[in-house]
């Protein structure tokens, strides 16, 4: 009997040990792996290093470039004043029949979001030629759409939410473009002759931002201002005609290139170039001397250019959850300083992911990003004296995605994601829809609009259309 009891106890203990061991062996914590930084094997990542001969190739497509006289001018990103406001517009046709506005021509483009410029009778666009794997500055006859010439260079890049995404700039018969891989090219506007080039990666150690460069070059008089974010240089001024370096602003804090463009503004009577890079915002005067810097607001992706609200405040906004902020500038004893003020998320106030907001008679007008809650993708207006309150919205039945917009002839012209052109009036803090028409077939119509003397160029991801909005062509 004792033996049996002992045997039973032994079996019980053995079974208990067996179950305990099984439990310890099979506990789920065994399968938990540490979430360490390089699990995606990104250490193997090799950015393709291609020796690009910027501007190496040229093709003239029309021998006779005698063009119809046209005096309109939209010479760079956001127009002549870089504010997306046309103050002296010809009267525009704001309502149309069933066929929509008059289409002058259409053309296919490489996939991207690059916007065109208009310089008198010509239009210029930094396109991507899919078949040739090349960035190409294409020159079109504005009213006929005939391509006159293209200056291009081999730049094999892979599709990364499109390829092209910048707007060239033109002054004094020189067009300056900045390509997706940060290749800068200056050509003569009339002939396409190559003047000078810069490779911001090779020459300055800059990093191409995610989804390729989106910065649009700034021409100020006889100089080009570029936000570089290189190993040693943050901003540089180059001579427009020769490309010679005029000055360089040192990059003391390792700020990287963003998608934002350099802002030319005047605060307290001092002209300054302001650049919102990845890691901070900086300003220098027209001799390249640092005026102020602030690193308290650092969105990981920064596309909209800052907007000066008044002589003391800059409106900063960025997408991907960043929201917006106010930067206060003060000027004491001959020195500027910048201090971050109130900041907010897109569901609490005006914000933007891609397009730069528009400042119109004390109203900050923007299209809210997709993370703005109930106002997602709505057109909204805020009084700059009462930020971040939103005073007017287009309403939940009027949403526009990430599309571009500008103000001309007393109306807002908005292109939504799907290529529908909307016209809205804005009066007494109310938006009123005047008309709408689908003018483009495709998607992602995010390229900035160009408008000069009633001729409008808009694009979707793969095509561009030229519209004649003049009341009297």
């Amino acid at each position, binding site marked *: 009997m004792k033996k049996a009891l002992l045997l039973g106890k032994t079996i019980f203990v053995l079974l208990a040990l067996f179950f305990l061991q099984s439990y310890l062996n099979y506990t789920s914590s065994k399968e938990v792996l*540490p*979430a*360490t*930084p*390089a*699990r*995606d*094997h*990104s250490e*193997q*990542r*090799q*950015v*393709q290093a291609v020796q690009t001969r910027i501007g190496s190739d040229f093709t003239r497509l029309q021998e006779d470039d005698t063009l119809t006289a046209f005096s309109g001018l939209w010479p760079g990103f956001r127009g002549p004043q870089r504010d997306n406001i046309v103050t002296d517009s010809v009267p525009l046709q704001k309502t149309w029949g069933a066929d929509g506005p008059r289409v002058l021509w259409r053309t296919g483009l490489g996939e991207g979001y690059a916007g065109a410029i208009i310089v008198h009778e010509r239009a210029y666009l930094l396109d991507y030629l899919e078949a040739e794997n090349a960035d190409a500055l294409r020159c079109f006859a504005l009213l006929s759409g005939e391509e006159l010439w293209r200056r291009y260079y081999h730049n094999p890049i*892979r599709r*990364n*939410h499109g390829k092209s995404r910048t707007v060239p700039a033109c002054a004094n018969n020189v067009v300056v473009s900045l390509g997706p891989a940060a290749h800068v090219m200056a050509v003569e506007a009339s002939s396409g002759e190559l003047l000078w080039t810069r490779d911001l990666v090779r020459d300055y150690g800059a990093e191409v931002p*995610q*989804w390729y460069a989106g910065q649009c070059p700034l021409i100020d008089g006889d100089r080009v201002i570029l936000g570089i974010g290189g190993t040693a240089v943050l901003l540089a001024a180059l001579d427009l005609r020769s490309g010679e370096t005029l000055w360089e602003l040192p990059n003391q804090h390792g700020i990287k290139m963003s998608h934002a463009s350099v802002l030319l503004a005047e605060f307290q009577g001092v002209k300054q170039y302001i650049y919102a890079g990845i890691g901070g915002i900086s300003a220098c005067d027209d001799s390249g001397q640092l005026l102020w810097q602030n690193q308290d607001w650092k969105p*990981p*992706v920064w596309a909209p250019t800052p907007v000066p609200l008044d002589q003391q405040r800059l409106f900063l906004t960025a*997408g*991907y*959850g*960043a929201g917006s902020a106010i930067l206060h500038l003060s000027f004491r004893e001959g020195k500027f300083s910048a201090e971050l003020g109130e900041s907010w998320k897109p569901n609490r106030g005006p914000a933007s*992911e891609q397009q730069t907001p528009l400042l119109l008679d004390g109203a900050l007008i923007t299209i809210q*990003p*997709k*993370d703005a809650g109930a106002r997602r993708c709505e057109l909204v207006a805020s009084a700059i004296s009462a930020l971040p309150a939103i005073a007017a919205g287009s309403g939940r039945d009027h949403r526009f*995605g990430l599309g571009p917009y500008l103000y001309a002839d007393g109306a807002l012209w908005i292109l939504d*994601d*799907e290529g529908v052109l909307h016209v809205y009036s804005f009066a007494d803090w109310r938006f009123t829809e005047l008309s709408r028409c689908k003018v483009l077939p495709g*998607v*992602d119509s995010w390229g900035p609009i160009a408008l000069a003397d009633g001729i409008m160029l808009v694009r979707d991801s793969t095509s561009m259309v030229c519209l004649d909005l003049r009341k009297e062509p």
Partner: protein
Amino acid sequence: MNRRNFLQSIFAVLLAAPFALLFRRTKSALPGTLWQIDPSKCIQCGQCARACILRPSAVKCVHQYAACGYCLFCSGYYHDQRHKFDTAAENLRCPVDAIERTYIEDPYFEYKINEDKCIACGKCVKGCAEFGNGSLFLQVRHNLCKNCNQCHIAAVCPAGAFVRVPASRPYIFKHAGEAK
């Protein structure tokens, strides 16, 4: 009925029972319609993770690769306050590390859902919808769902995103135009 016939009847019933059960099970597994989530209505409220009678939920995040941008910065993968674009836990939006990221070739990264880990919280779907292409979305996985026709998630879904779909087309794919 004599004893032999009685036993024969019992034996016949026992033999037939598995076939009858099999037939019944087959019939219940292939109803005319099934529950599914309409991605265009889903608001990623998190009810799919909490309300399902299964733990973890039979709803999973799925990835429509054709709509994905394969970006380094995936807003479904990284949360808003990430420090770096790497795979360290502190940067990731998914609370259970259910998205596996693999470097393909510059500049592309692939994002794959580990359904064994996914709890259907919808956080990645929200991030993808707000900033990305919307290629991540929630679907009822019919290999996991009990198909009991008394779906508790459908009863509590605040957006009315649970809809009946034909069993022959049990999943709802996004069209190209909807993938934004």
